[in-house]
């Protein structure tokens, strides 16, 4: 807080704007951009991992794994994201507390589900009532990340499943003819070649993931949408910096942010696609070979 900002109602013009834009709430708004980036940075690899697991399970020769993989993909893909988000976060939270309830609450404690309430003993609360606000927020964020990873993992699994099927059968057969085992074919031939087929689908998912981050707001995480609405709403004299309805400006700012994010992603993904096509037995790979020759 700048010293010039001690009495916001007596200042105006540029000083007012500077003070306004550096208020505690605005600083929290700027940090929420980091929250969104962090969500992307954690969710993307986690979803890829879930997706890889799901796809591998779905085409496994072992029946229970195949059933599990296919059920996961079909179930999550079939339920509207918002419904899944609203349901799963509450379910996961209660499941975690229930497991802890079984472990730490004194024996004979009543079941946590009492009519409309869900109530575990103090020791079983996650996070503990006494822990700092940071842990409460971190826990909420963690629930959101897991949910995002499961939802986007299912879509990723479907993309990777398709990509694995798309690798030319001749490639795999050649490897088998060389005497490679099933696992060796998978690791050395299938996985390295599938990425080029997976990339269009994955890049699509990445774009959707970027655009789905405002769902955080729905889950009670104070993200950029929360702050844009909170800061943009008209403010009376009860506030230090009264102003009219500025939501349009704040939301416009968010639109610019998302457009920049998606544009940057497009550039990076374009380069990645070129890199992956090099030397591949695909049309793009062939075109590159001819251009070079």
């Amino acid at each position, binding site marked *: 807080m700048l010293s010039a900002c001690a009495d*916001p109602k007596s200042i105006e013009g540029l000083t007012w704007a500077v003070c306004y834009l550096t*208020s*505690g*709430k605005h*600083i*929290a708004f700027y940090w929420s951009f980091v929250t969104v980036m962090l969500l992307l940075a954690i969710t993307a690899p986690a979803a890829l991992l879930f997706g890889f697991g799901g796809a591998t399970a779905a085409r496994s020769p072992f029946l229970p794994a195949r059933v599990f993989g296919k059920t996961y993909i079909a179930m999550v893909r079939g339920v509207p994201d918002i419904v899944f988000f609203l349901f799963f976060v*509450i379910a996961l*939270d*209660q499941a975690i*507390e229930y497991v802890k309830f079984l472990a730490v609450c004194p024996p004979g404690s009543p079941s946590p589900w*009492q*009519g*409309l*309430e*869900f*109530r*575990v003993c*103090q*020791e079983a*609360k*996650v*996070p*503990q*009532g*006494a*822990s*700092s*606000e940071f*842990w*409460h927020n971190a*826990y909420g964020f963690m629930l959101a990340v897991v949910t995002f990873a499961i939802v986007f993992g299912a879509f990723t699994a479907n993309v990777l499943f398709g990509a694995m099927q798309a690798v030319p059968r001749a490639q795999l057969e050649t490897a088998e003819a060389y005497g490679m085992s099933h696992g060796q074919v998978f690791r050395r031939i299938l996985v390295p070649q599938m990425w080029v087929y997976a990339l269009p689908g994955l890049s699509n998912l990445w774009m959707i993931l970027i655009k789905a981050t405002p769902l955080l707001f729905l889950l*009670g995480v104070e993200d950029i949408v929360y702050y844009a*609405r*909170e800061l943009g*709403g*008209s403010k*009376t*004299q*009860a*506030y*230090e*910096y*009264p102003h009219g*309805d500025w*939501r349009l400006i704040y939301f416009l700012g968010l639109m610019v942010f998302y457009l920049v994010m998606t544009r940057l992603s497009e550039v990076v993904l374009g380069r990645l696609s070129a890199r992956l096509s090099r030397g591949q037995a695909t049309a793009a790979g062939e075109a590159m070979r001819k251009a070079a020759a």
Partner: protein
Amino acid sequence: MKKLLLATALAGLSGAAFAQDVVRLGTEGAYPPYNFINDAGEVAGFEREFGDELCKRAGLTCSWVTNEWDSIIPNLQSGNYDVIIAGMSITEEREQVIDFSQGYLPPASSAYLALSADTDLKSGPVAAQTGTIQAAFVAENGMTLVEYATPEETVAAVKNGEAVAVLADKDYLVPMAAESGGAMVLLAQEESIGGGVGLGFRDSDDDLRGKFDAAIKSMKCDGTLDVMITKPEYFGPEAKTWGDAGKEGC
């Protein structure tokens, strides 16, 4: 080092089991002067000062949590916080799902804010916040109701013509009308709905409710509650107070 970090993280999550329990107060943070998030990003308003004073008197450590209005009761029940302190009127409907403390604000009037003083309330939809006593009132009295998630949006709806008027607590609307520069006015018609404002508790939390009830009573008895209500930054000198009625049984 890694183990140390992990242990610290676990200790943070599982909390200091020996530390005093913290009572988490849940509020909306969007309804000045009752409660709002100030420019420093903290909960402020009448209920902030009032809640902190109650915790001091009851000898409790309290922390503040904000939650959207429309899920404020379910999230109390699932244990995200322990007390609702959000200008919530005591109604029979809510009594069926949660318990209320005694009132800390006397029943206040609700007012209509519209673009002109001669607005016909039947001529178009009337805005109110979802799940409020005002929304129920509008629906039950032959007006067309449009609901919004936040109080802020109900007022914005009148400004841009989506609704002919908004019905809300008068104390919330007075500064809106005063600062609109004449663009919006309060109608002469006022409604008296609700049975006073109280704290909300889970049905099973009678101990906690007892502590807060005692603290509210003590603030009524020594008159500090009335002084706090009439502060100019909250409800002003003309606000309804408890007066002698609050001192019964002291």
